């Protein structure tokens, strides 16, 4: 049965479709789409855009580059910082019709620990996603591509909250399974992958990088084969649940993620092409139950 309720982190989610961090701003969407958004909220749990201790403006424009089957972004984690997140956004997120997963990132273990600690007992929050793998900030992807550093960071945070921790892994590794195992052994309750692949685009007017941040992160259908390979390899290695994402744009893609071993499926870039992508993908996934006799 595809598309049914999922038990995870002691909660029951209505279905397995969630958003990828940073690909759906529920607060902006509610302003744009009004109350229909609540009635048709497309995700079983909502993952916030990654926040950091201090506010960040993000990278200078241009931040986007289109590919034939995806895009490269150099957003650079713009966010209002922890204090204003707690004051302004957390109450608003709490009113969403889906449990909240807060994505956090830090430029040091202490920074990350401070953020997790400050939020660690908030009842609005179901779980934390630890973004160990953002290619758009200097040190973003380094921690996550080392099993040792991923383990060290996870252990450090494990002591700061009772809430479930999801380690968002780096895709920049020949052994994502080892990174996932390191996170599991250090106390992570789930892993999510893949984050965007580091990539670059050249200014067509000649020379130099196009993106304001120099490089960026590639996402969308172009990265789906990489995501499937890593998700299936990781899911074989760990016992904890896997949140699989990368290029999912239809029900069939979601099914392939689930078949590869994911417990939840994240939808990212497809949200940009279709604001209700989550809803559509879930519907398509459920329709596949009818045709699931086809499966070997």
């Amino acid at each position: 049965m595809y598309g049914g309720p999922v038990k995870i982190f002691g909660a029951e989610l209505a279905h397995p479709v969630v958003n990828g961090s940073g690909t759906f701003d529920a607060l902006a969407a509610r302003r744009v789409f009004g109350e229909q958004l609540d009635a048709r909220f497309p995700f079983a749990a909502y993952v916030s855009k990654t926040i950091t201790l201090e506010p960040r403006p993000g990278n200078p424009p241009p931040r986007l580059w289109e590919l034939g089957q995806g895009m490269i972004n150099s957003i650079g984690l713009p966010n209002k910082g922890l204090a204003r997140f707690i004051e302004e956004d957390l109450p608003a997120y709490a009113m969403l019709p889906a449990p909240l997963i807060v994505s956090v990132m830090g430029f040091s273990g202490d920074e990350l620990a401070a953020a997790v600690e400050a939020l660690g007992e908030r009842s609005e929050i179901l779980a934390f996603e630890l973004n160990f793998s953002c290619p758009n900030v200097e040190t973003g992807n380094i921690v996550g591509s080392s099993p040792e550093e991923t383990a060290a960071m996870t252990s450090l945070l494990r002591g700061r909250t009772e809430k479930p921790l999801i380690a968002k892994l780096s895709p920049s590794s020949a052994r994502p399974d080892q990174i996932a195992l390191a996170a599991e052994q250090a106390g992570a309750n789930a892993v999510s992958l893949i984050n965007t692949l580091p990539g670059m685009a050249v200014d067509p007017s000649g020379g130099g990088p196009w993106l304001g941040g120099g490089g960026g992160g590639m996402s969308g259908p172009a990265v789906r084969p990489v995501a499937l390979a890593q998700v299936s390899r990781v899911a074989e290695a760990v016992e904890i649940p896997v949140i699989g994402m990368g290029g999912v744009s239809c029900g069939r893609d979601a099914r392939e993620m689930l078949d590869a071993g994911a417990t939840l499926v994240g939808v990212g870039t497809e949200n940009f092409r279709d604001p209700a992508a989550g809803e559509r993908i879930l519907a398509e996934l459920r329709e596949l139950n009818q045709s699931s006799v086809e499966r070997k």
Partner: protein
Amino acid sequence: MTQACVTAPFGRRSAPVRSIERSGPYTFLRALDAAGPKPRAGQFYMLQTARGWGGGDDGRPYLPRALSFARVEQVNGGLELTYFLESVGPGTARLAACATGEELLIAGPFGNGFDLDRTRPPVLVAGGVGLAPIVALDDKIRKTDGARSTVLVGMRDGERAAAITKFGVECGIATEDGSAGHAGYVTALLERELEDGHDSTVYACGPPAMLEAVRALCSEREVPCQLALESGMACGYGACYGCVVPTVDGYARLCVDGPVLPGDKLETAIVKGAGH
């Protein structure tokens, strides 16, 4: 700037092409929106074709494309939206190649739209395809409010200037090649207009260099202006944080905080990567 009071239907929806006309490099694309609310002048939609979106030399387009509506009319079955576009890349080329009856997928209306100040005479300035939201604003001022406006339009050449007569908008014209109206930039017309028009508000849309000239001029003359900017957009509804432009208050997402920004919020209207 106040937030848009118009909320968009959630998701994207099917909109059949009712007609498509080409004139010189421009395309007038009319689509039936059976489900959307009446948009506000300056708002925009994200468009893609239901089939064959992709397949350019490098596989693009992949993301939907932002287009302002130029005209909206109540018709049988919904709203007829007129888009006005020039083919400058794979997305606009695909849209310009649509056939009547073909299915578009649209989302919107998005963005704030112009914030019409009814206490000051409106001066509308357009460059190239930037004419789209200016036609919409002019329609609103004249047809809806029954008021008057001054419209100034800059076009690259006579072919383009001839094409836009289809809109039937009364306007002053400037062409870069001098083949119609004033020979030069539309900002020369604006300069003349503002000589005795200190009490007006300027509403402008066009290429970055034009907008920047308008902004500088208005700032110098202390005339308030509202500029409809462009930037690369992935989503159009605030999800991706990709469309930011620098303002005096920091980066603003053009899709939700714009596309119309007051001139005094900008240090420059030229943003790397925006426009052509």
